[in-house]
């Protein structure tokens, strides 16, 4: 058995082991999602390249595909370079360099949610504790608009709810769990406080709690149809706990009221801190390296969102996002890297992307793969060793891969590096 880092979700679990013997895989510690991810990665570990002409896909040499991709990217005006949040830090950095060379737009799925969360002014409150701190100190854990039981299976057992820590000697017995959502979730089963609230009412509940904690407005009647006694009990738990960790997900960010909801979380954190207790808030996302994209993009423009290199210099355009430009038909060519964005983008953006000339680099069987003019299939990042990803708390995790390597060469990093070199050889976009 050898150690591996799971890239199935943003937890980047590094405590699991696997064994590949006689074509069969055995894992210990990987959740169902991680094991399925690894099975798929091993099954599709052989790199291949395809070119699609007149609707027919034909296999070609990978180096030829890279050269053709370089030509297409340089022909296509200002291309959109999108994906990235499931690739390593090294691939992201190479992608940013390439975006500058082709004077394109660099964007990722992190722009939908993660970026909004990380750009919010609440980060001036210094919310960046790491998950180990939560494990060691988190006394009151809140899942708000997120259900780890569905997509981040090991979140409660590894960091937030069940494990023991320095100030949490009895593990789950020393913690309290609260779950707030618009529907019944599986995680509610193990929660001490559970609230099902009307859609769009998150900000109201957050502000009510903040006001009660600071004493500016005490709860004296039902809130959102929830009995006052239950909400008061919830509020009192915030006041009694020495350290509160709020994990918020797409229910907060993609409900159409993300600004109000994030402001509500900020008020709640401020209220808890105003009474001398610790409080932190963390976004919950499933993509393994959303934070890698945020980190490296912020290094260029200081704004963790899409970057416009069309003028030759990387800038963040706050008026028009890359996706809006895509919908407006301003991109005729797209490079999709390591992420099946067609499966995740809002419909108008997905429809617009499908109409561009797509170059896809990543694991096979993606929807993007079916629409791509050039497809280069590379082994999954989980099989790579030495490259890095950023966990949601910005802790850098080095991928371990397998020994001997199961994935054959070239890796996604080698393909992107060669493509960047081919563009460089052609002089980039003048």
């Amino acid at each position, binding site marked *: *058995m050898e150690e591996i880092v799971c890239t199935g979700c943003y937890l980047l*679990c590094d*405590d*699991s*082991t696997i064994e590949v013997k006689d074509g069969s*895989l*055995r*894992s*210990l*510690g*990987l*959740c*169902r*999602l*991680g*094991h*399925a991810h690894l099975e798929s990665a091993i099954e599709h570990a052989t790199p291949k390249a395809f070119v699609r002409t007149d609707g027919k896909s034909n296999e070609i040499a990978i180096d030829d595909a890279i050269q053709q991709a370089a030509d297409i990217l340089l022909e296509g005006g200002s291309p959109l370079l999108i994906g990235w949040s499931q690739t390593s830090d090294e691939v992201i950095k190479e992608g940013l360099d390439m975006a500058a060379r082709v004077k394109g737009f660099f964007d990722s799925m992190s722009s939908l949610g993660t970026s909004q969360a990380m750009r919010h002014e609440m980060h001036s409150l210094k919310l960046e504790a790491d998950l180990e701190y939560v*494990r060691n100190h988190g006394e009151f854990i809140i899942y708000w608009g997120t259900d780890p*039981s569905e997509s981040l*299976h*090991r979140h*409660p*057992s*590894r*960091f937030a*709810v*069940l*494990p*023991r*820590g320095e100030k949490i000697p009895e*593990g*789950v017995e020393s913690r309290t769990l609260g779950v707030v959502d618009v529907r019944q979730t*599986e*995680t509610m*089963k*193990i929660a001490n406080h559970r609230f099902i609230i009307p859609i769009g009412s998150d900000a109201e509940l957050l502000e009510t709690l903040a006001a009660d904690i600071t004493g500016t407005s005490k709860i004296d009647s039902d809130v959102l149809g929830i009995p006052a006694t239950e909400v008061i009990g919830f509020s009192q738990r915030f006041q009694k706990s020495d350290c509160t960790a709020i994990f918020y997900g797409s229910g907060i960010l993609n409900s159409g009221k993300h600004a109000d909801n994030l402001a509500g979380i900020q008020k709640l954190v401020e209220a808890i801190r105003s009474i001398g207790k610790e409080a932190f808030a963390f976004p919950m996302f499933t993509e393994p390296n959303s934070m890698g994209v945020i980190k490296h993009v912020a290094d260029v423009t200081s704004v963790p969102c899409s970057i416009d290199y069309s003028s030759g210099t990387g800038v963040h355009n706050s008026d028009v996002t890359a996706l809006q430009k895509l919908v407006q038909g301003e991109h005729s060519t797209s490079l999709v890297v390591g992420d099946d964005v067609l499966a995740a983008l809002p419909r108008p953006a997905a429809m617009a992307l499908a109409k561009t000339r797509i170059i896809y680099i990543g694991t096979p069987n993606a929807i993007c793969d079916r629409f791509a003019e050039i497809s280069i299939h590379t082994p999954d990042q989980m099989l790579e060793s030495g490259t890095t990803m950023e966990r949601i708390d910005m802790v850098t995790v080095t991928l371990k891969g397998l020994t001997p390597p199961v994935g054959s060469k070239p890796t996604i990093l080698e393909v992107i590096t060669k493509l960047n070199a081919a563009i460089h050889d052609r002089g980039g976009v003048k």
Partner: protein
Amino acid sequence: MKLNPMEMYNLLPKTNCRQCEPKTCMAFATKLALGDVNPDDCPPLLEEGFEANLQKIRDLVAPMQSAAETGIKLDESKCTGCSNCVVACPVDVAAEPPTSEGKAAQVGTTVFWVENGISKIINLEKCRRFPPNRLNCRVCEQYCCTNAIEIW
């Protein structure tokens, strides 16, 4: 599904014959519902006239008897491999201390470990519910979000 002692009691002969170890029919019904005794341990129930009741009780306790000695049933189709059972189990924490910090069980000395993405019971005899301890510990069931673990 848990068995209701009153339902069991209503199906017993209710003679309080004191031929069984619990001595009274109510105590026998309670132990029947917990899986501590078998229907065949009640001599009057085996007598003529109680065939239908005996069969009904056997049908009710049959799933529990399939749950082995501890009464734990693990439905792999519902399991997400979240490791909640591994980290919550007091035996696991003692057997492999890193699991107390949320780490994956690796050594093979725990009651549960997660293999191929699914929780598996690998040392049933270490469970605190296993004879002779027979403690009424239910933490694995309590913290299983998907109800993959059920204790009869």
